[in-house]
């Protein structure tokens, strides 16, 4: 007999204290030093190992290469990182704790700072305040925090040279110069302080142009693992490497796959110059694209070093000719406690005071090879060495909407996310696109003018009565300062809000000047305009393109010129009825292109599920051929396209 576990219902029953806590205004979390360890088990390992190596081998310091940055030294980077570092060298003293920010290095997802502390406390914890630290005016969510004081110093020594690393969930490094507002806090360990004993604020500007210019980027199509075995192989699509990191983007695995959810994956081997390389998998940048990246735990995670009594970040040399790698998998430890590595290099899980051995060094720490070793030839040179060529390549690549962060449409960039303090216009252009909607963000004078319009808007909120009824959407919305104003024909802006005391509120006002100006921008830059569906007549051909799960993520298209079918389409689509509120029935995954007798082309986004709904530039219509009919009659007309409602 089957029994159902309905999460939506069961989750209601969680401890009321949890609910009560989340019901309060969000405040920066209390700080406990163990948070350093809680996010990724391996972060304990790195700290423990660094100390152990130092204890077991006093010659470590002497044999370390000549690093010019503390950051490079602490993490065992092989290359001189000084050209990427911003030297700050500012000392501040607060409540008797003295802190010198020495240097800062950023790549597109990581912030590394080197510091010197001087304090009277017996032990001193130091951390980056993630709530207050802003990069280009924006807060970013931290994926992981790490601290290491190098090989011979504990991370809570009151006087120490140390390095803090903040690994972010998203990209932090835009083009050009980056303004960093860095807030550091110092405090005692395990005190559970709302605030640290001392707060240190540093503002500086850093550029990543040097790093970008020295980055190798190469498109690949290399299948690894066990080719031919379902869900046991990956395809490497892109390689990026520089002196700070190496990343590979792979496909062939999705967020939902057991392989991704039950196993850790890594690539390990050496480059042509003999440098060890470890890339850790697991982070998805879209539903079906996973990143393998060098991280700060690399080889340390397995408890080993590079065999030369030195610590070394497992980044290949960007000048190398090839990488020899092997894919490995390891069954994840579920719901474990803190993972530690002892002096023998045995990895253990500790929970409720009991220590249980999980992976031993002799078993390669649980890692099993998947498929055969493989070689990747590195044929591209860093951008700085052949800037013109790569620039051309990037320009070409930019025309294809490959990133989950943005797409290029009509030679304009449409962003996936809102940009803070910018007026952003939410659009749904007809055409196959990864996401339902994107934001067009005007720049320069247009942005200024829009801001000035929006800043001058009245704030006339009234009780929610759905005043939009009887009006028709224009197909876009204007977003600014946390509010989204849906635009209706006739130059109306509409927004809703919930007020704790007044309940549901709405705002509807005619702002023709703003709407006309915005529409003008959309027409000029994106050719994004309302379409009169009664003009869908005299259809000469109908081309349907689709890319969705039913087509296994591949593009399919079919063109129909049969007059009887086209007449049918004309009847359906010309007489469709407007549908308020949009739809998300996989409309973004198809594009129906009608070529009319007058030469005009009309593009529609047809639902790829059972709904008889289509959109044209953000305005949606119900075209159902008969009452209660679904989308199947339409899809049956395109018999060469795989579909599954």
């Amino acid at each position, binding site marked *: 007999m089957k029994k159902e576990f309905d999460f939506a219902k069961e989750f209601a029953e969680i401890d009321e204290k949890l609910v009560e806590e989340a019901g309060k205004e969000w405040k920066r979390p209390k700080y406990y030093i163990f948070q350093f360890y809680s996010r990724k088990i391996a972060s304990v390992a790195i700290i423990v190992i660094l100390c152990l190596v130092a204890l077991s081998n006093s010659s470590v310091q002497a044999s370390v290469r000549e690093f010019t940055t503390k950051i490079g030294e602490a993490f065992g980077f092989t290359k001189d990182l000084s050209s990427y570092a911003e030297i700050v060298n500012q000392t501040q003293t607060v409540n008797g704790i003295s802190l010198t920010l020495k240097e800062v290095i950023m790549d597109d997802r990581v912030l590394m700072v080197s510091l010197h502390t001087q304090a009277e406390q017996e032990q001193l914890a130091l951390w980056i305040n993630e709530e207050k630290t802003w990069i280009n005016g924006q807060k970013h969510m931290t994926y992981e925090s790490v601290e290491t004081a190098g090989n011979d110093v504990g991370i809570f020594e009151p006087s120490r040279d140390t390095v803090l690393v903040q690994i972010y969930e998203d990209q932090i490094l835009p083009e050009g110069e980056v303004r960093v507002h860095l807030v550091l806090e110092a405090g005692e360990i395990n005190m559970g302080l709302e605030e640290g004993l001392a707060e240190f604020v540093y503002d500086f500007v850093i550029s990543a142009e040097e790093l970008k210019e020295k980055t190798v980027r190469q498109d690949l199509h290399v299948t690894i693992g066990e080719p031919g075995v379902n869900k046991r192989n990956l395809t490497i699509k892109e390689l990026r490497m520089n002196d700070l990191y190496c990343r590979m983007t792979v496909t062939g695995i999705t967020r939902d796959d057991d392989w991704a959810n039950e196993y850790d994956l890594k690539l390990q081997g050496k480059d042509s110059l003999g440098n060890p390389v470890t890339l850790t998998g697991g982070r998805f940048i879209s539903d079906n694209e996973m990143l393998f990246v060098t991280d700060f735990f690399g080889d340390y995670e397995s408890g080993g070093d590079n065999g030369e009594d030195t610590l070394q970040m497992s980044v290949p040399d960007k000048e190398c000719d090839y990488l020899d790698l092997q894919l490995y998998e390891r069954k994840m430890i579920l719901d474990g406690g803190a993972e530690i590595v002892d002096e023998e290099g045995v990895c253990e899980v500790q929970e409720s005071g009991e220590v249980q051995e999980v992976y031993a060094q002799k078993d390669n720490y649980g890692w099993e090879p998947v498929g055969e070793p493989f070689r990747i030839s590195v044929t591209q040179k860093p951008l700085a060495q052949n800037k013109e060529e790569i620039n051309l390549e990037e320009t070409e690549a930019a025309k294809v909407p490959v990133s989950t962060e943005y797409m290029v449409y009509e030679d304009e960039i449409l962003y996936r996310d809102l940009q803070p303090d910018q007026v952003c216009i939410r659009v749904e252009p007809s055409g196959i696109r990864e996401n339902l909607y994107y934001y067009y963000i005007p720049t320069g004078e247009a942005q200024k003018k829009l801001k000035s319009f929006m800043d001058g808007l009245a704030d006339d909120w009234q009780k929610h009565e759905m005043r939009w009824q009887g009006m028709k959407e224009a197909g876009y919305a204007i977003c600014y300062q946390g509010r989204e104003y849906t635009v209706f024909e006739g130059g109306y802006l509409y927004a809703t809000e919930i007020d704790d005391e007044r309940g*549901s509120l709405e705002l509807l006002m005619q702002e023709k000047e703003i709407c006309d100006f915005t529409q003008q921008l959309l027409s000029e830059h994106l050719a994004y305009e309302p379409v009169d569906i009664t003009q869908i007549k005299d259809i000469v051909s109908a081309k349907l393109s689709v890319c969705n799960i039913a087509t296994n993520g591949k593009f399919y298209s079919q063109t129909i010129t049969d007059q009887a079918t086209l007449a049918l389409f004309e009847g359906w689509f010309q007489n469709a009825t407007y549908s308020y509120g949009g739809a998300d029935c996989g409309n973004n995954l198809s594009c129906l292109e009608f070529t009319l007798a007058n030469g005009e082309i009309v593009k529609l986004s047809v639902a790829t599920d059972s709904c008889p709904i289509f959109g044209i530039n953000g305005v949606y219509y119900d075209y159902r051929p008969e009452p209660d009919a679904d989308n199947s009659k339409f899809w049956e007309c395109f018999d060469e396209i795989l579909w599954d409602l």
Partner: protein
Amino acid sequence: MEDTEIIDLFWKRDETAIQELSSKYSGYCYKIAWNLLENHEDTQECLNDTWFAAWKRMPPHRPLVLSAFVGRIARGFAIDFFRKKHANKRVERRRKDVLGEMDELSFSYTVEEQMAEKELLEAIEKFLWKLKETDRDIFIRRYWYLDSIKEIAKRHGVTEGCIKTNLCRNRKKLYRILKQEVLT
């Protein structure tokens, strides 16, 4: 009026109890139901059911946290209402999303694998307590309060993409834990 006083009114079967309860918690419950229903009439109906259900449950129940108690009732009615109303219909994605995400964490299991819902709930709570505070807040705001991604992003001052990634990771983590609980 203090929560304990409102609860006392319920226990005394004083009909002003409902008035006091709705006066204090209508905004709170309205928001939860609205997050899913996005319709004033439906939300209002849901709230009326909530006050009536509270009347029926107190006594014998004496909630420790009154807000969570009524919020839970409102949330339950909203989910039932939504599912009933939209059975066999396609609905707007932005409203459907949160239930779709929660469906990822729902599963069926055979009697042999059967364990009490209570144990699964304990596993969920253990998982929540182990989360970093920020992650826990995001998870509960999304799946208990049914907040939109946009609202949560605003609450934490980060991008919507960040919140989606965070939720996705923790959903997967919880799913593995729940499946393991069922299978072992």
